[in-house]
C-alpha cells in the first residue's frame, strides 16, 4: 500500500517552530471562537433560526447584522445554530473514525506480516474505495439522507486514515528496544500496546484528529450543500449556501457568509493540527 497523505506529511513536513507556534495560536483562537459561538447558540440566538418572518432578504443592519435570507430568517442566528450542527457532526465523525481506525491499526501492527494484518489492511483498502461522498450517497439512497447518514459516511470513510497512521506509527514503536525489553519480561501483546504503543502514538493521533476534524467539516458542508446531510430547515452552513445560490446576483453576501464560516472553521482546525504536531511531538522537535 502506498503511503497515506498523513504519513507523507508527518515524515517530511517539518516546518520551523518559528512558524508553527503562531499557527497553533491562530488556529486555537479561531476554533475557540467557533466553539463559543456554538455554545451560545445552545441557549440563545438573536432570532429563531428556522421560523420565517416578513423581512425577506433584508440587507445588513443593526437589527440583522448579516441580513436575512429568502424566508426572512436572521442570517447571524442561522450561522450560530449552524456552528452547533457543524461541530457536533464533525465530532461524531472523528469519533467514528478513531474508534474504527485505531484498533484496526493496532491489531494490524501487532500481527505484522501475518494473514490478520493482510486481511485488516485489505479491508481498509476496500473502505478507501468509497470516499465520504460516495458512502453518503449510498446511505442516502438506502435509508434517506440525515445527519446520521452524513456522520456515518464521513466517519467510516475516514477509518482508513486512522488505521494506516496508527499501523505505521505502532510498527515503529513495536520495533523499539524498550518494547523488546518488555517482551523479555513476558508482557502480553495487549499490555505492550496499551502501555507502550498507545502513549507513544497519542500525540500523532491527536494531531490527526484535529486535521480530520477540518476535513469532516468540509465534507459535511459539501454533503449538506448537495442535500445529502441534515434535511431542511436545519441551518447547516452547506444548505445555507445551496439556498442562497439562486440569489447570487442579487445578494452575494448571503452565499458568502456561510462560505466564510466554513472556511474559517476548516482553517482553524487545520492550523491547530499543524501547530499541535509541533507542540506535542517531541521527536519532531529534536530533529530540528
Amino acid at each position: 500500500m502506498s503511503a497515506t497523505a498523513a504519513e507523507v506529511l508527518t515524515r517530511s513536513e517539518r516546518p520551523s517552530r518559528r512558524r508553527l507556534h503562531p499557527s497553533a495560536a491562530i488556529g486555537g483562537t479561531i476554533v475557540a471562537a467557533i466553539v463559543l459561538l456554538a455554545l451560545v447558540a445552545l441557549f440563545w440566538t438573536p432570532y429563531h433560526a428556522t421560523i420565517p418572518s416578513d423581512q425577506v432578504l433584508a440587507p445588513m443592519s443593526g437589527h440583522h447584522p448579516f441580513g436575512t435570507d429568502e424566508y426572512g430568517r436572521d442570517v447571524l442566528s442561522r450561522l450560530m445554530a449552524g456552528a452547533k450542527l457543524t461541530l457536533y457532526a464533525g465530532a461524531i465523525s472523528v469519533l467514528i473514525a478513531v474508534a474504527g481506525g485505531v484498533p484496526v491499526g493496532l491489531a494490524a501492527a501487532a500481527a505484522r506480516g501475518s494473514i490478520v494484518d493482510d486481511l485488516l489492511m485489505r479491508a481498509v483498502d476496500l473502505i478507501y474505495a468509497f470516499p465520504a461522498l460516495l458512502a453518503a450517497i449510498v446511505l442516502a439512497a438506502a435509508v434517506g439522507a440525515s445527519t446520521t447518514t452524513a456522520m456515518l459516511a464521513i466517519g467510516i470513510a475516514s477509518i482508513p486514515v486512522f488505521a494506516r497512521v496508527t499501523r505505521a506509527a505502532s510498527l515503529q514503536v513495536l520495533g523499539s528496544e524498550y518494547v523488546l525489553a518488555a517482551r523479555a519480561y513476558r508482557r502480553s501483546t495487549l499490555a505492550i500496546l496499551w502501555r507502550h504503543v498507545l502513549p507513544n502514538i497519542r500525540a500523532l493521533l491527536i494531531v490527526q484528529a484535529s486535521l480530520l476534524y477540518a476535513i469532516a467539516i468540509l465534507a459535511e458542508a459539501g454533503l449538506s450543500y448537495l442535500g445529502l446531510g441534515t434535511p431542511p430547515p436545519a441551518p447547516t452552513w452547506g444548505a445555507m449556501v445551496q439556498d442562497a445560490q439562486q440569489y447570487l446576483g442579487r445578494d452575494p453576501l448571503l452565499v458568502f457568509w456561510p462560505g466564510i464560516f466554513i472556511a474559517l472553521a476548516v482553517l482553524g482546525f487545520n492550523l491547530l493540527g499543524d501547530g499541535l504536531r509541533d507542540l506535542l511531538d517531541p521527536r519532531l522537535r529534536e530533529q530540528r
Partner: protein
Amino acid sequence: MTPRYFLRRLVTLVATLFAATLVVFSLLSVLPGSPAQVILGTQATPASVKALTQQLGLDHPLWRQYVHWLHGLLTLRLGHSYISQLPIGSQIGRSLAVTGPLIGFGLLVGIVIAVPFGVAAALFRRNAAGAAITSLSQVGIAVPNFIVGLLLILVFAVRLGWLDASGFTPWSQSVWAAFKSLVLPAIALGLVEGALLSRYVRSAVLDVLRSDYLRTARAKGLSRRQALVRHGFRNGAIPVVTVLGLEIPSLIIGAVVIENVFTLPGVGTLLLQAVSNRDLLVVQDVVMLVAVVVLVVNFLVDASYRLLDPRLR
C-alpha cells in the same frame, strides 16, 4: 517491479473489487419497499406491482439478482433504468464525456498551480514570499470548492459576463463551446486541489534539498541547478506521484459537487438524480464505477511508485 509482486497486487485488486460489489449490492438491497411499487406509484394495483416485479426479475432470490447484476457489470451490459427506462450504459457514457474532461482539466489546473508555487514555497521558505505562499495554500485548502465555484460565477458570469454560469454544450455540437462550459468548473476544481498539492510539492522539494545525496552531488562539483535536475526531480517525484494518486478520489468527489454548482450533466448529476428518484440500479452502477476507478488508480500509483523508486523493487 517484480512480476510476482505485480501478480499479488493484481489478485488483491480483483478481490477488493469483488468485495466492493458485495458491499454496494447488499447495502442497496436491504431496502424496505419494492422498486416496482416506487415505479408504479401508490395508485397501482397489487397485481400490476407483482407483474412488474416479475418482469424486473426482483422476485428472484437475492443471490440470483446479485449474480445477474455482476454478470451485467462484467459484460458491460448494464440494462435499463427501472425509473427512466433509459439504457444505463449510454447514460453513464454521456455523463463521462463531461466528468472525464472536467477531472482532467481540473487536475491540470491543480498541477499548474501546485508545482511552481510548491517549489517556490520550498526555495524561499526563509523569507516572506515563502511564508505568504504557505499561508495562501492553507486558506486555499480551507475554502470549499463550491464556494470557489460560486465566486467564479459571480465574477466571470454575473458581473463580467464572459462565460456562462451553468449548462453544458455537448462535444458533438461544438467542441469549443463544450470546452468553454468546462473552463470555470475546471478552475474551481483545480484551485482547491492545487492548494493541497502545493503543500506536498513543497515538502517533497524540502526533503530533496536536505538530502545527503544532493549534498554529495554538490560536493562532486555539480551546480545547484544540475544537482537538482539530475538527482532531485526523480526523488522528489515519488511522494508527489503518490499524492497525485491519492487525490484522484477527492477530484472525483469534487467534480460531483462542482457539477452541481454549474449544473453540468456529468456523473455526479446522474448519481444525485438517481438517488432522489430512488433509481437504485443506476446508483449501484455509478457507485461501482467510481469505486473501480479509485481502486485501479490506487493500483497504478502503487505500480508507478515502484518503477520510480528502485529501492522498492
